[in-house]
């Protein structure tokens, strides 16, 4: 479904080169849920933006169903970490979910159906008339997820979507994503810095190195399905996988070249059209 | 990047001047009404060599500076009193909201009757217009005081004076600076307006004279001068504001670190 081949991204600004991603190759099969995990500031966001067509890679390519990604492809939806800033504050929840559908040119009745279905899936049927900022953080992120679902994507990219919500909400949202994935058979690429979350959610975990990023290890998560916050997390196999990923990440951090880490981290988060030197 | 921006800006300015030169020369508009940039430039140079021009400029600046100082002093004092005295805020709110949007030019006939073309006419209009800008910003600033900071200060037993000094004033300062900046440009507008309409001595009156004597290039030259003056006021006020606030933020930064 999704092929990332030899991806490299170098930010250039006022004569300074910052290599955020060095050489990444991995694939995500149709209907798979893959978690990308790596130390903070390792260029995960850069990678995801390249996959989503929001950033042009310096070298290498991203293929979606065998077609090269050059701009945001149809059939691909993005859920950002900053829920508070990715929902349109001047639109009600329903309008937010409907916006991409209007863009697709769907007829009104079909749009209504999709919006209602998506909001029901995330348990927010009653919130359609509210403004996003009237909802709690967790609920806002549910709206963002509903918007992605209503878009009926083949591939869903999620960029640390739960990093900014509290722990209990986070557990609920994790189960929501697992549930939706099983129900709807969407391909999901889920980026996180949280090792437990990666192991709990993923069918497969791709461990990334520190920036400039390469793939350190890919491992299959052979935990039984359905997963459960209580029982899955206490299974010995969960602990084993978790430990293994944890070791890899620690090693990745140690082997990282000592450099201006702070700067690199900021650079990778820089918006596409802004030069890193601005910060 | 900054350099290329300045270059583009200079190009824009050059293009604008070229346009002002070309449009009347090509006959797009009547050169009697819109003289080419070069002729306006000539007129400007002549003005600069004229002593009475400098007197007029001085008159305008006097009216502006005096009016602005009175308005800022009065605005800050009134704002702080309203903020500090209990219930005064609620009592004055409706009056402020009513008086503020009253256009100061409504006072022109009154000013003419009371003071004729004297400086006080100009001051009346300038002070009335600029005062509200300052007062309203001070009131916004006072309202913006973080309730948590206020509670903290109270819980450590800071008195009214100390709370004003360490909580109220630092919070309100950025607003005060914004008020001063807005008031500075409003004051210039009203100073020139008063001179133009009432005939009080200054650049405005000189523009009116140039207009009635059909000295069109001189009129444009004087308008350019008022524009440059406005630009200086804006840039100057912004610089002062940034300085004052940079100091303010660095102090706060040291406290929090």
């Amino acid at each position: 479904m999704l092929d990332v081949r030899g991806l490299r991204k170098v930010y250039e600004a006022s004569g300074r080169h910052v290599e955020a991603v060095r050489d990444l190759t991995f694939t995500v099969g149709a209907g798979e849920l893959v978690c990308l995990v790596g130390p903070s500031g390792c260029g995960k966001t850069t990678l995801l933006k390249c996959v989503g067509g929001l950033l042009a890679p310096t070298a290498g390519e991203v293929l979606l169903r065998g077609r090269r990604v050059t701009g945001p492809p149809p059939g691909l939806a993005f859920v950002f970490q900053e829920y508070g800033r990715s929902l349109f504050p001047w639109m009600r929840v329903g309008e937010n979910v409907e916006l991409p559908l209007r863009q697709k040119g769907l007829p009104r009745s079909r749009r209504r159906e999709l919006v209602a279905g998506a909001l029901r899936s995330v348990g927010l049927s009653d919130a359609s008339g509210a403004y996003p900022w009237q909802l709690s953080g967790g609920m806002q992120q549910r709206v963002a997820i509903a918007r992605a679902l209503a878009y009926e994507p083949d591939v869903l990219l999620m960029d640390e979507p739960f990093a900014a919500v509290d722990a209990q909400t986070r557990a609920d949202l994790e189960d929501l994503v697992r549930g939706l994935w099983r129900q709807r058979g969407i391909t999901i690429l889920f980026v996180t810095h949280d090792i437990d979350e990666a192991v709990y959610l993923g069918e497969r975990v791709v461990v990334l190195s520190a920036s400039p990023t390469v793939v350190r290890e890919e491992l299959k998560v052979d935990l039984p399905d359905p997963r459960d916050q209580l029982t899955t997390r206490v299974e010995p196999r969960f602990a084993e996988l978790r430990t293994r990923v944890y070791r890899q990440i620690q090693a990745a951090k140690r082997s990282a070249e000592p450099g201006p880490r702070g700067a690199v981290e900021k650079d990778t988060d820089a918006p596409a059209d802004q030069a890193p030197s601005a910060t | 990047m900054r350099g290329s921006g300045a270059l583009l800006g200079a190009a824009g300015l050059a293009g604008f001047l070229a346009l002002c030169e070309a449009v009347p020369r090509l006959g797009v508009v009547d050169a009697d009404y819109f003289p080419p940039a070069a002729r306006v430039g000539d007129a400007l140079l002549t003005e600069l060599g004229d002593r009475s021009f400098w007197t007029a400029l001085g008159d305008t600046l006097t009216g502006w500076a005096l009016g602005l100082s009175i308005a800022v002093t009065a605005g800050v004092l009134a704002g702080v009193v309203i903020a500090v005295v209990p219930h005064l805020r609620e009592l004055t709110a409706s009056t402020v909201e009513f008086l503020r949007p009253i256009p100061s030019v409504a006072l022109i006939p009154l000013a003419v009757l009371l003071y004729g073309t004297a400086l006080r006419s100009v001051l009346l209009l300038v002070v009335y217009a600029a005062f509200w800008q300052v007062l309203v910003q001070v009131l916004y600033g006072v309202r913006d005081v973080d309730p948590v900071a206020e509670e903290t200060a109270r819980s450590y037993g800071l008195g009214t004076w100390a709370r004003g000094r360490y909580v109220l004033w630092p919070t309100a300062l950025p607003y005060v600076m914004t008020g001063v900046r807005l008031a500075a440009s409003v004051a210039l507008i009203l100073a020139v307006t008063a001179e133009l309409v009432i005939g009080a001595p200054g650049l405005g009156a000189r523009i009116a004279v140039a207009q009635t004597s059909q000295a069109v290039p001189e009129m444009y030259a004087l308008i350019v001068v008022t524009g440059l003056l406005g630009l200086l006021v804006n840039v100057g006020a912004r610089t002062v504001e940034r300085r004052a606030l940079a100091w303010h933020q660095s102090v706060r930064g040291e406290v929090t670190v």
Partner: protein
Amino acid sequence: MSRALLRLSYALALPAVLMAVWWLASADSTNVYWPPLRTVLKTFPDVWTPGRLRADVVPSLLRLAGGYLTAAVVGVALGTVIGSYRRVRSVCEPVMEFLRAVPPPVLVPVIMLFAGIGDTMKVLVIASGCVWPVLLNTVEGVRAVDPVLAETARSYGVRGVARLKDLVLPSASPQIFAGLRQALSVGIILMVISEMFAASDGLGFTVVQFQRGFALPEMWTGILVLGLLGFLLSVLFQVVERRALGWYHGRRAVGRRPGGRS
């Protein structure tokens, strides 16, 4: 109920006191410049008859509306273009800064050269003075679109007209309204001034006529009408703004509440 009563008495107390002071202080005034408030108020209905409102207030308001709306449309349109392209912005910035800094009333003699002293002149004067606050605020607002929001829109294929309508303009609208508010007070000033300069009707013309004819109580009523007009227009503006920016004020209120989300 009692709270509302308290609020009302707070709102009315000071104005009542001020009016009373004015009334009493001017009651025995023999100074021609400061006629007793009683006289001014008694003159009011005689001066501002429906016929006069139609003949003087309506033309003024129409000129104001024409100039103001022209400035709003032109300012938002140009500001959106300039704010969307960094290079265009760099080119235009110094020129815009200069043109904005020219005190708008000096435009009156210039525009009189071109457009004579008719209604066109007044509308043009108002429009050319009001356009700058709208334009510059729109540029700032358009430039400051949240990058996350912009990427969200891009990733969902929102572009072209939809991007403008659903992303850029709403996101810039708080700034645009700030500009429109400034423009309103500039507009009223210019309306009055352009009529004082050269006109045969309108509020500014009438008030100056009273002053020149030493009809002082009448002049005072004119000043009151101008004040009232400024106040009413500002109230109207606030109503419209509250409507249009309901989301913005709501979000700010949420952010401000102690323990609220920022």
